[in-house]
């Protein structure tokens, strides 16, 4: 701030209030009156602006609160219950679950036996249960084959999560590679067991009937 600034009148109080509001909202931590004095144009009265702002937020869903010698915006304490859902911990799905999900998405409707043939390992009950519980997959109609096995298909919840209109919109391998999304490092031949880093590999050596 140079001394010249004092030649100009300070902005009107309503404008100062707006400024304080914006600064409090965007700051990562509480802001002191001194901070505000330095950031607002010369001649402003942040203390008064703060009091006006505080009165304006009285009874709203958000309040202006004092934290030590600084000020911050906080949600009203009586609405804390609304925030509980905010604190979900997100974890990445396991590789087994992702692969199972991918097979269902690309091959639906697909039976458990078919999933196992493609993955080359048996599919644990927990994996399928987890996907069912997340509502990313559901039971489809039964296959017209001996035993009439149930099939799995993906759900609308799945499509919403991945931003897809339709499971057919999933890009193919060629397109993935073209977009540079696959690290297509050629491996040195395929040795059986080389992929055995799997968490549920009870039955390796199942021949990969679905490889094409």
């Amino acid at each position, binding site marked *: 701030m140079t001394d010249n600034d004092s030649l100009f009148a300070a902005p009107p109080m309503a404008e100062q209030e707006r400024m304080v509001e914006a600064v409090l909202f965007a700051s990562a931590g509480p802001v002191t009156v001194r901070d505000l004095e330095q950031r607002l144009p010369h001649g402003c009265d942040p203390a008064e602006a703060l009091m006006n702002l505080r009165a304006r937020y009285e009874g709203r869903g958000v309040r202006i609160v004092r934290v030590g010698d600084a000020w911050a915006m906080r949600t009203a304490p009586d609405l804390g219950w609304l925030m509980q859902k905010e*604190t979900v911990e997100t974890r990445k799905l396991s590789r087994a679950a992702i692969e199972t999900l991918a097979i269902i998405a690309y091959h639906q409707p697909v039976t458990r036996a078919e999933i196992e043939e493609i993955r080359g390992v048996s599919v644990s009950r927990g994996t399928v249960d987890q996907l069912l519980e*997340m509502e990313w997959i559901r039971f489809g109609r039964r296959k017209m084959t001996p035993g009439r096995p149930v099939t799995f298909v993906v759900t609308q919840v799945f499509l919403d999560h991945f931003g897809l209109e339709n499971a057919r919109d999933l890009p193919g391998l060629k397109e993935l590679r073209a977009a540079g999304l696959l690290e297509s490092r*050629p491996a040195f031949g395929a040795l059986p067991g080389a992929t055995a880093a799997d968490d549920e590999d009870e039955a390796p050596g199942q021949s990969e009937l679905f490889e094409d």
Partner: protein
Amino acid sequence: MDDNDFDPIEDTLGVADRLAAEALIVDVDGFEGPLDLLLSLSRTQKVDLRKISVLDLARQYLGFVQQAKALRIELAADYLVMAAWLAYLKSRLLLPPDPAEDGPSGEELAAHLAFQLERLQAMRDVAARLMARDRLGRDFFARGQVQTVERVRKVRYTATLLDLMQGYARLRTRDEFRPFVMDRDSVYTMEEALGRMRGLLGFAGQWTDIAAWLPDGWDADPVKWRSATAATFAASLELVKEGHAEIRQSETFAPIELRKRDGRE
């Protein structure tokens, strides 16, 4: 097309045009392809892109390519393809239409080129307008503080589309594709070969085919054989470089032989 376009003395470029073309030539790397260059050339006409003279533009472009050739500037293939096409377009525009010929007329082709230029320019203009907008994190801001509230631990599993697609790709291309994991059990490294050969070199007084130096069990599988051969060869060269061994090959594709160098010379 107006009458000017049929000017017979087409190759007489004005001094100003010539200078402009030379200025452009210096800059040839700065263009993102022929269309970008054509757009730059069209600006010298200083008219609405819809009223542009495609014939003049074709002349300027061909002049540019001529000069680039004269100055021995390497032009990428697509610049030359565009030049050939513009030369064809120019002839179509200059000659009376052949009623026997099918396909779009010269005027239609010219109109489409003008459309392409106008569209590219329009995209550049709106891109600039877009980038000049008020932007999050620069002009307006989200809440600065992440709210700390009581933690009700609820695990939500998630995955991205990329995870899903890569998972699928991993399964379906298992033979040729495995992300992140270097397949070590069929790779014989040069360090391993070197370690093994250092130990054995003392016994190699005679010329021995390096194929004999492969570790046991690495010659059956072609994949492993290839890796072991490469590593053994590289290690042999290293030993020769260090002065511990000599290497020879009598002719192309003959066996490569190695023996210990014991300071006889």
